[in-house]
């Protein structure tokens, strides 16, 4: 029996010896980050960046909320140099919590100035727009046109056929909520959401999931961000993308430096942010991930409706971020709890 234990312990020891060899890959030319872009996207960007600059990027892919929770939990001893891919609303919230360090890239003046942070706490990257994605077969079966207005979704034909993510877990869904509230005012806005709730089949966790459901025919119409919708279209699903005529809400993705991150990685991380708002990253993000560039000097080969042709609503992301908690609370208490009544 002792032999067993010896064998087991030796094995454990062997592994323990292997571990440090794997762990410490601290090269001069590398840095660490948390990324909220999905694996395929962040891997594509990082590969291109390493190809062009020779700098290694070591990253973990997390959802935005998970990332925020981690950066907050690691506050006293930050584990990464920068974060990347979260919304600008989350960036503002994190800046307010004193979790970020400012950084202003030299080429910032090429960016759409409406979205540039005056304090330089984060750098805007891409813009994505709220849209509807309808299953083409379902539309045909029901004899419907793709929805072009928020009010279309309240029609009885859409009963149990609408899918949207939960605003507390998905940035896309929260944009839908907060733009409704900003468009109609709090009272009318929630009245609308309550009406909409009657037609919603399920609130998913991830913002991209509703489009897959709609693509599969699980539901008729999904609401969410245009890049996720277009990805589902690119995969070959029968999804028709349309935009609300009242004006679409939007999200802006961003990159930022983590406060007090590893000192020897600062320079490399700064280079990455500079590169992210440059032409090659912007073009890749548009052609492969369907995100509209915020760099006004970049004009990639068009594949979607040009952003200029979509009516964007007058949307205040600062107000949106500030009211997130109370909005989500109201959503839980008024909209979701009324679900029991039906």
């Amino acid at each position, binding site marked *: *029996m*002792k032999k067993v*234990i010896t064998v*087991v312990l030796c*094995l*454990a020891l062997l*592994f*323990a010896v292997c*571990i440090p060899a*794997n*762990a410490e*890959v601290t090269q001069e030319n590398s840095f660490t*980050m948390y990324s909220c872009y*999905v*694996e*395929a996207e962040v*891997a594509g960007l990082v590969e291109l960046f390493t190809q062009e600059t020779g700098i290694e990027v*070591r990253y*973990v*892919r*997390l*959802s935005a*909320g*998970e990332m*925020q*929770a*981690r950066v*907050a*939990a*690691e506050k*006293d*001893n930050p*584990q990464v140099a920068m974060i990347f891919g979260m919304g600008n609303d989350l960036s503002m*919230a994190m800046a307010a919590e004193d979790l970020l360090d400012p950084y202003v890239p030299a080429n910032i003046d090429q960016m759409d100035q409406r979205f540039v942070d005056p304090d330089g706490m984060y750098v805007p990257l891409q813009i994505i727009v709220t849209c509807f994605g309808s299953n083409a077969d379902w539309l045909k079966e029901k004899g419907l046109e793709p929805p072009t207005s928020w009010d279309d979704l309240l029609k009885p034909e859409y009963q*149990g056929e609408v899918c949207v993510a939960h605003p*507390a*877990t998905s940035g896309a869904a929260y944009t839908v909520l907060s733009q409704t509230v900003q468009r109609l005012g709090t009272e009318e806005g929630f009245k609308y959401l309550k009406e909409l709730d009657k037609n919603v*089949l*399920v609130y998913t*966790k*991830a913002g*991209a*999931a509703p*489009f*897959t459901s709609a*693509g*599969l*025919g*699980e*539901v008729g119409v999904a609401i969410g961000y245009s890049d996720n919708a277009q990805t589902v279209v690119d995969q*070959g699903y029968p999804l028709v993308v349309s935009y609300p005529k009242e004006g679409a809400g939007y999200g802006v993705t961003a990159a930022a430096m983590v406060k007090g991150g590893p000192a020897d990685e600062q320079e490399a991380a700064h280079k990455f942010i500079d590169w992210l708002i440059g032409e090659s990253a912007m073009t890749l993000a548009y052609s492969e991930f369907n995100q509209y560039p915020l760099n006004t000097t970049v004009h990639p080969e068009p594949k979607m409706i040009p952003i200029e042709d979509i009516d964007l609503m007058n949307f205040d992301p600062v107000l949106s971020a500030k009211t*997130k*908690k109370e909005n*989500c*609370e109201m959503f*839980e*208490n008024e909209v*979701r*709890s009324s*679900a029991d009544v039906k």
Partner: protein
Amino acid sequence: MDSTVYAGKRRRKSEKRREFLMLMKQPGLLFAILVVFAILILFCVYPIVRLFISCLTDKTGQLNLDNINYVFTKTDFFKAFWNSIKLGLFVGLMATVVGFIYAFAVTRTKLPGKKFFNIMAILPILSPPFVISLAVMLLFGRSGLITKNLLHIRGNNIYGFTWLAIVQILSLFPLAYLNLKGMLETLDSSVENAGRTLGASRLKVFLTVTLPLSLPGFLSSFLIIFAKSLCDFGNPQVLAGDYSVLSVSAYLQIVGLFDLKTGSFIALSILLPCMLAYLIQNYWVSKRSFVTVTGKATGTVELISEKKIVIPLFVVLLLMTLFTLLMYGTVVYVSFVKTWGVDWSMTLDSYQFILKRGARAMQDTLLLSSVATPLSALLGMLIAFLLVRKNFFGKRLMSVASILPFAVPGIALGIGYVAAFNTRPIQLTGTAVIIIVAMVFRTLSIGVETGSNSLRQVDPSIEEASIILGAGNAKTFFSVSLPIMKSALFSGLLNSFIRSMTSVSAVIFLVSVNWNLLTVNILSEIESNRLGAASAYCVALMVMVILAVGVLEFIVNGLFARRRRSYE
């Protein structure tokens, strides 16, 4: 003071003293107990207590109950609480019954295809839980292959209690199966044989001997599954719909509303029912213990071969197995299909993708789990041995501490670990150690439970004999107790390996740029809609686990084979 009470107190006091003196005479044992305590307090108690305190205080460290107040008044806490409990009770009961049917069929009957059923019963825990949810959605959803294309039902609603319970039962019954199988194997069948010889019918033997003897295992399985169902996050987040449960509420608060404190508090509140169930079970089991392995010569198990018993069992197992296979078949199929629902042509794209992007994560997952598994199982057996066989001060504390990390949702454990081990003196974040430690302690209680159950079946006189013959505590543990716990050790190893390989919510806060895990990748692929890649990852994970199980079986059987005769 009443004199009898005083006398009782004095007696208890002197007992305590004797216990203490006994302990002092066995420095090895004392050392083992102290080390186990130190480890448990550091890795089980401290992170959770620290997290709990942070829920009750504000930034400056002052007591602040606003968060609690908020949880009770502003969220649907109570509704979610009762929903979770209802779900846990139902799933716990059903999954334990199913697990018992499996275990009984495999250990007590001449069932054809036992080996096959044995593997099929373990299959559901080989993959992260949300995989079954995914398969259910693809098969039975509103546009599911079965509901829409086969049965032409449109609008089948899978979101809510029913399907959530079905999926949880399916993914959790293997825990009961492994636990009860280990117990039924150790349970000396001569008692059952005696019942038969004395003329009792099969049914009577089953009802009056087998069932009562399995009750401790039954209860501990129920407890494990109850706790697991309460802490489960993967399935409810996909399938719960309007049926709100605690783990999802906690996640919404932490990840959605960026409110670490209220979220952690909701997550920690799951401790209450879990601990209560645990204490009830503990009290109950300590009242009745059944010793059947006595070291005396016993007969071999008389396997049931009557057709009227075997055939219905066979049918039940076959149906369950078919359902399980259907679920996993779907996942395998999705991994080869180009685009589910649109382009059904076969392709290896998904596998190329995961080999390119996930090779590192696969290596890391295998390596870290392989390190964590033996540590967890051995520590579990050691704690089981101490709890069942030895008397010492603080025993209750040890048993509660060992179950703590299991009885909180993974997300609370993960955040607790980051908060506790992010700064000096113990700085572990970003290292492999923190992931290994989380895996070890997250899975520890399964080893403790299975180990205790099989030890309780064994007459302590066997170990006493070893001591009397001059073997020390350590030698007795390693050459007598541990071999007796062989089956339990194996199921402990198996369980902890599988749980380590497939855990999600606990490790999502612990993975780092140097150490990433496969399950985190799967979750990310599901979130980003790449069902093919997610399924391919799942298949890779399952293949790795199945191979590892084979290796494990080989090692454990090989190492113990020589000693087997000595106690049977």
